[in-house]
């Protein structure tokens, strides 16, 4: 009798292999002529602009809460003047990119999984194929490119909004001027804090796009399959965000950028 672990291993290997092949096909199609520029712009609008309110609200609350929660500990050590510096480094290096990516994994990853899954089970992808449009290039390449390029932009906006939340948080119990707060923030941040954080968001965006499209594009089993695609797109994309983050931190550390 097969052990349950055999099934888990086999599913894991199948999924990993499937995603690897899907990624390889993405790069193969990316450099072929007749790219779908209009659809790419439409996806940038959906991924970027439509996610902006959710990302901004979350970032603002995140900055505000982190500042309020950190204050008592710093006050205990008499280091409350370090609050803007500590908050800015935490947000820009780690919290803001990861939280933005997780929000996008939930919103965009599930959306792509459900949309492409529904197109697969209602034969819309086959109809595209029959009409002479390469559905992989039209649906997948445009979406993966859009998430890869939009996530860093969203993450930077999230940085700015969360730091603004931090400024308000500092001023709830204290008195720090606008210019002093930003001077402290920029003095605390270095090249090694900002650039690696931006670079990893490209990978977060790429992973979210690839997983969302892979799950949707290969959806089966009717409407039940669409639900499963959306759900597993979020789970796998979120997990990949953490794995990429772990690898990025190790690489940054090895390069001495911490």
């Amino acid at each position: 009798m097969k052990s349950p672990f055999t099934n888990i291993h086999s599913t894991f290997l199948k999924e990993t292999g499937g995603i690897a092949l899907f990624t390889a096909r993405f790069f193969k199609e990316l450099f072929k002529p007749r790219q779908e520029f209009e659809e790419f712009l439409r996806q940038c609008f959906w991924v970027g602009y439509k996610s902006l309110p959710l990302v901004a609200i979350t970032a603002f609350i995140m900055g505000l809460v982190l500042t309020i929660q950190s204050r008592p500990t710093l006050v205990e050590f008499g280091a409350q003047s370090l609050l803007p510096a500590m908050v800015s480094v935490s947000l820009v290096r780690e919290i803001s990119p990861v939280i933005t990516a997780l929000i996008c994994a939930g919103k965009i990853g599930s959306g792509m999984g459900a949309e492409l899954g529904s197109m697969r089970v209602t034969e819309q992808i086959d109809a595209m194929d029959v009409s002479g449009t390469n559905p992989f290039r039209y649906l997948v390449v445009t979406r993966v490119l859009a998430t890869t390029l939009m996530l860093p932009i969203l993450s930077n906006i999230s940085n700015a909004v969360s730091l603004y939340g931090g400024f308000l948080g500092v001023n709830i119990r204290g008195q720090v001027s606008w210019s002093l707060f930003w001077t402290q923030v920029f003095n605390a941040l270095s090249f090694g804090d900002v650039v690696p954080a931006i670079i990893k968001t490209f990978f977060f965006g790429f992973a979210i796009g690839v997983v969302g499209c892979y799950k949707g594009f290969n959806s089966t089993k009717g409407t039940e399959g669409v639900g499963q695609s959306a759900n597993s797109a979020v789970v796998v994309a979120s997990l990949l965000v953490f794995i990429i983050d772990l690898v990025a931190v190790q690489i940054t550390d090895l390069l001495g950028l911490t």
Partner: protein
Amino acid sequence: MENAPVIVVKNLHKSFGENHVLRNFSVSLHSGENLAILGKSGSGKSVLIKCIIRLIESDQGDITVLNQNIDTLSNDELDNLRAKVGFLFQSNALYDSMTVRENLEFPLRRHWSDEQRRKGTETAILEALNDVGLAHTIDMMPSELSGGMRKRIALARTLILRPAIILYDEPTTGLDPITAREISHLIVNVQQKYNASSIIISHDMHCIGITSNRVVMLIDGMCYADNTYEALRQSEDDRIKEFFD
């Protein structure tokens, strides 16, 4: 004299695991003909027409469409051939994020030049919509249409490239008898107006009676009978009779 064949399927075999859906199936469609393929649900009818347009790869056998062996075509050649072969999906497969206009415009973007699209898109869309009697729905979304209207719009999208061959996958499934009859007559009108050849996959005997010149019965993955609708209707064979009872 019999017209030239536009589709020739020879010894087609297709299986999914242990399930042998098509076994050495052969059929041909002649120019200007409406051929109905009749069979029970799950008998491999849809698989057959998806193999014809290479949406599904066959395991064995030869398929020639408009004198081109589809297995040897490159992707570009296949795309060009597909412009001459319309496919009406069972589920209509209308792009639900696009309006009716955008749905009909979609096939043109690949097969028409920019110049052709600039000058002829609006006329082509309106003509296709007029053919199915739904010109007023041009700016509506598919979700705003009834099942019968969606089927007609899907047919208009199929017609917009003026295909030489049209493959209909269960064109009347899920429709009420009146709408189903309207769609069946529409298929006949289209065939007469454009002189298109058609394969109609169905188990709706009324639709087959109205639309077909010839009927092929697909049973156990093989061609069980090949004759006119009337001849099959009068057959004493039990397996044929059960379709008409």
